[in-house]
């Protein structure tokens, strides 16, 4: 458990992930659900960025006139992965929000339960 105090970035990321997951499960409003999904995404970025960090090292941009040594720079791979994550989360959020907008225009509500009720009624008719 003492590791939890040194790994506090990862711990915070994991707790944020749980909060986002709970929001995704509990929120009735569809837009709030996707806010929860975005919180989960953000937690993953924090986790990846924390995994790539190395104490007392610079960002991986080689300074001019110096030899490129591994001992001077942090791990660049998680930074690239975070970039991929951001792009995917933006795309998924935009697509799902477009679907939500269509749902709202059709059913006049953002509440998932109400939408399901109305959809069931429509199915019967």
């Amino acid at each position: 458990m003492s590791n939890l105090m040194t790994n506090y970035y990862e711990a915070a990321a994991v707790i944020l992930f749980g909060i986002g997951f709970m929001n995704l499960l509990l929120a009735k409003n569809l837009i709030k659900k996707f806010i929860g999904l975005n919180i989960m995404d953000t937690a993953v970025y924090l986790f990846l960025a924390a995994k790539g960090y190395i104490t007392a090292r610079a960002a991986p941009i080689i300074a001019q006139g110096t030899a490129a040594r591994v001992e001077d720079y942090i791990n660049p791979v998680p930074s690239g992965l975070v970039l991929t994550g951001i792009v995917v989360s933006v795309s998924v959020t935009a697509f799902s929000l477009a679907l939500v907008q269509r749902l709202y225009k059709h059913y006049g509500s953002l509440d998932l339960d109400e939408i399901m009720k109305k959809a069931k009624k429509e199915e019967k008719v």
Partner: protein
Amino acid sequence: MINEKKEKSKWQHFVDWVNGEEAIERPKKISLQKINKKKLIILIRKYIWSRRKKTALHLIMCTFACMVFIGILLHTVSTLPYFGGSTNPASNEVVERYIESGVEETGASNIVTAMILEYRAFDTFGESCILFLAVICVVMLLKKDAAEETEEEKAFDQEEENVILKKVANILTPLLFLFGCYVILNGHISPGGGFSGGAIMGAGLILYACVNGQKSVQRFFTYKTFLRINVISLLAYGILKGYSFFAGANHLPDVIPKGTGWDLLSGGLILPLNICVGMIVMCTVYGFYALFTKGDI
């Protein structure tokens, strides 16, 4: 019919339920009306499973499940290697190779850009394709004809009436574009790159559209230009990177000059690829804004 149903075995019920022919079997209420206690239990059960109680139960179960989930993950975190340690398993020989020979092999001093646009360029190609797909999906879902414009949508075409806001925004927009271009063009020698620069330029377009109305953006950025920029950028990315991958895999001589490091014109294909990615991101960011507000680009 009722007899028939009774004759069915539990397994048959299950098969029917899987096939969607039968609703799930509820446990039959025990008809023990003689004993009041049993009646009471049924009543209580009914009360517990009433709708309001169901949501409460749902809430408690969800919270419990999430707590367990967080607990498991926290336990995992406590066994992870130390934060910021230099001997973490993540910083292995791959990282050493990227950093120590990155400038020499790619000509870009920003190792992250060198990684995403040279070593792992097809990953970034996939990202650009995902962005393109997302914006095309949003176009499919939200784009509508100009004929059925409502009052609310027409409001997005009107100019902003606040003079201060308008003046400041009109001064800021070209500066935002300039900064976006700077970030894109210097992506391989300083922090930044196609994604961040494209997002800045898209923000500039959004600001312009907010203040001057979306009609004024359509003077230079219509649906046709949007599609053309997107498709040409994607094709250019695919062809350029495809060429360098094929040439490299077949041991052909590298004809693309790498340039001297830390110059603006260095890094071989990284600069044109950055421009392609920047254009795609700019179109996508503005496309999302325009489609979500007015439903038309």
